[in-house]
């Protein structure tokens, strides 16, 4: 594979935890790979599966959805509802034959700058292994 | 002079067509699912089935057709048209119903004040090789709608399947250019009379009982009839009949944008979809399935004859065969007529 290829990853971060976590990583000077492009959403429960699919169709190599830990949701239950959507969507996409790891999920709180950096690092590693997205992309 | 093409020569013949032109012919996408497609290799062609799912109109008015591409240049745009057809085309294996349907599309796309350039170019570039329908289905009623399984009108060449060979008739100037073709041999009298026999048998088989005669006048009186309250009931508005109909020609124009440019495309559309006539304000002149079903039937049997003097149905039977709920257009026509004619299989239903 071409070594110069760097994956493009879209990250949906919830406003209250993960986005703040990313912010903390930044202000604490914790390094993480520059492959992610962030879209801030009110809550991980706000994620419509259409967003993830549209991103993949548009050619991003991976999608990360990150929200508050269970029990910490600013809207009390948004991340619980989101969790069910995530679980079913992930399973379904993998069943269809989209590679495991293209779409990933995490809980990152506002205090977990370190965890955010670690999660992004792992996701980038996973997707580098998978290579550029070929299936489903609109040519 | 009558010619024939031996089936063992079919593949080389097809190859010669591919070398000369873009060849379109029926291709099997899955077991029993056929469409007209551009052929790359002769063995893709499948002439065994009686008709394709998607009609041959697709070659002339494709389901998705790019009208032009544009490229952004500052505050202006560079527009590149896609109307030219670069290579000659041959379409092979078209059934008479589909050919008759093309002549109806001609009326729409070529007629009146405006000529549709895309359609015209597709039409002009194409040589039409018709294929006689030796085994019409029970749902075929082309003989009722002014056509027939052996209708030659509209074909440049006409093939009749004789089992071991095809009898070939050259019908137009475009067709005559094939006269010198190495693949065609002279047919003997036996083969000619065999073709006649097949023709007679097929003619007997197609349904001539569907009462389309005078339907325009009958429907004139039925616009506000309670007839429509019942007719639409079983229709789920799924559009299959309109997409698979060889005479339906409605389309939608859309822009597809990319970062620095994009294209304007047109896609088939269907009067059975609620969005089809819905205005931006939310007002819909055809708000329910009742009005939309009426539009479908009235357009084919009343509006179209008013504009062009012919009904817009060729009796191919696709809408009957593929309708998920068995809406039978023959029965809808029957019901407009005082005398309800019997079909081969007398059923009972509260709707057509």
């Amino acid at each position: 594979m071409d070594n110069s290829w760097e994956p493009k990853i879209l990250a949906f971060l919830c406003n209250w935890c993960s986005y703040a976590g990313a912010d903390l990583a930044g202000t604490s000077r914790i390094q993480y790979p520059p492959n992610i492009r962030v879209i801030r959403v009110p809550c991980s429960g706000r994620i419509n599966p259409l967003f993830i699919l549209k991103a993949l169709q548009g050619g991003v190599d991976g999608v990360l959805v990150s929200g508050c830990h269970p029990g910490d949701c600013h809207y009390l239950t948004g991340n619980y509802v989101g969790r069910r959507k995530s679980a079913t969507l992930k399973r379904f996409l993998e069943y269809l034959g989209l590679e495991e790891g293209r779409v990933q999920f995490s809980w990152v709180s506002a205090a977990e700058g370190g965890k955010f950096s670690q999660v992004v690092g792992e996701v980038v590693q996973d997707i580098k292994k998978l290579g550029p997205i070929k299936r489903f992309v609109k040519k | 002079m009558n010619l024939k093409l031996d089936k063992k020569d079919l593949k080389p013949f097809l190859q010669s067509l591919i070398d000369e032109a873009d060849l379109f012919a029926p291709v099997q996408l899955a077991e029993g699912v056929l469409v007209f497609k551009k052929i790359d290799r002769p063995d893709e062609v499948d002439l065994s089935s009686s008709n394709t799912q998607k009609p041959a109109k697709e070659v002339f008015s494709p389901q998705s057709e790019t009208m032009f591409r544009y490229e952004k240049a500052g505050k202006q745009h560079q527009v590149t048209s896609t109307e030219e057809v670069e290579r000659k085309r041959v379409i092979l294996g078209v059934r008479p119903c589909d050919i008759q349907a093309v002549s109806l599309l001609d009326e729409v796309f070529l007629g009146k004040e405006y000529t549709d350039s895309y359609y015209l170019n597709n039409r002009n570039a194409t040589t039409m090789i018709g294929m006689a329908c030796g085994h019409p289905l029970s749902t075929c009623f082309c003989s009722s709608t002014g056509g027939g399984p052996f209708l030659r009108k509209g074909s440049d060449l006409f093939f009749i399947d004789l089992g071991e060979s095809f009898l070939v008739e050259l019908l137009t100037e475009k067709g005559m250019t094939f006269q010198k073709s190495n693949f065609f041999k002279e047919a003997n009298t036996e083969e000619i009379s065999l073709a006649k026999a097949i023709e007679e048998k097929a003619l007997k088989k197609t349904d001539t009982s569907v009462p389309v005669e005078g339907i325009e006048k009958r429907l004139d009186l039925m616009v506000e009839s309670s007839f429509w309250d019942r007719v639409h009931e079983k229709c789920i508005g799924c559009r299959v009949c309109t997409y698979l109909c060889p005479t339906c020609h409605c389309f939608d124009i859309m822009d597809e944008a990319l970062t620095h440019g994009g294209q304007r495309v047109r896609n088939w559309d269907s009067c059975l979809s609620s969005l089809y006539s819905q205005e931006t304000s939310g007002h819909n002149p055809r708000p329910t399935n009742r009005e939309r079903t009426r539009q479908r039937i009235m357009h084919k049997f009343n509006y179209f004859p008013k504009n062009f003097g012919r009904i817009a149905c060729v009796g191919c039977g696709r809408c009957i065969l593929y309708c998920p709920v068995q809406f039978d257009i023959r029965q809808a026509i029957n019901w407009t007529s005082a005398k309800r004619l019997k079909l081969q299989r007398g059923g009972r239903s509260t709707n057509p």
Partner: protein
Amino acid sequence: MIQKKIREKAKELLEKKMVDLIIGFGEWTLPLRTTPIFVRNPKEVDHLIWNSFCENNLSTYLHKFSHFKVGIVVKGCDARSITALSLEKRFKPDQLYLIGVPCQRMVDRRRVKKAVKGEILRASEQGDQIIVEGEDFKTALKREDFLYSSCQVCTHRTPTLANVLVGDPVEEIPMTETHPDIKEFEKKSPEERWKYFEKESSRCILCFACREACPMCYCEECFVDSSNPKWIEKSLSPSDNEFYHIVRAYHQTGRCSGCGACERACPMEIRLTYLTQKLNQNVKELFNFETGIDAETLPPLSTYETEDRQEFIK
């Protein structure tokens, strides 16, 4: 027997004016098929029939008759669709009267057609056989061999929550043991699986018959019709076709009764039930939920448990 009971019940409901109309199946012009019919007059109940060709899910029509009291002939799957729709508050409680038929499972007309040479002009049922006749042939086929794939794996053939059951309940198979073709499919590599999905959806002509045939697809505006944001382009491109089929199926998560109406409606014979069946299996495994079994449990994506599985979340 069942047919007679359906007619009797329909007659009673219409005569007592308990319903405005009965939606059921009638005989019509094509062999191997029936057609949905709408009976309003008690004298017309003899049009109602029952056989192994009653393949439509009639609950689709309930959206059309939302202002009427409707009596409806339902198979197991249709009844479950109705329960699922009731959970989504599509009907008033007393609006429907379900005439439940324990289902013998329906015959796949396409498979029958492909099994014989020549056009089938007449078809009938005799015991466990399907007799098909054409111009120059007459063949008996074993009914069991020609069932719809969605019927083969059906787990609830006896309608749950019907107002009346015509016929004796049939023995059910539990869900865990079924879906052999899903098991087969899952053995393939992701690449092969995607290839298969690609091939199937490439035939799609975006006629949306699968959507319209589905009782659960009743959105005022389907995502494909939205112009702002525009999720998919409607010109046929492989990726947009796949997008449509992924979302159409996924939107059925926890809502699909597995009736197979989508696949039966498809003019291009695209396999669709292998998608929705898997979704059903997923919600069973993850949330122990089966669509339309009871009228209280909320569909899985409308609710949550704090203890839901989350091992996939980093």
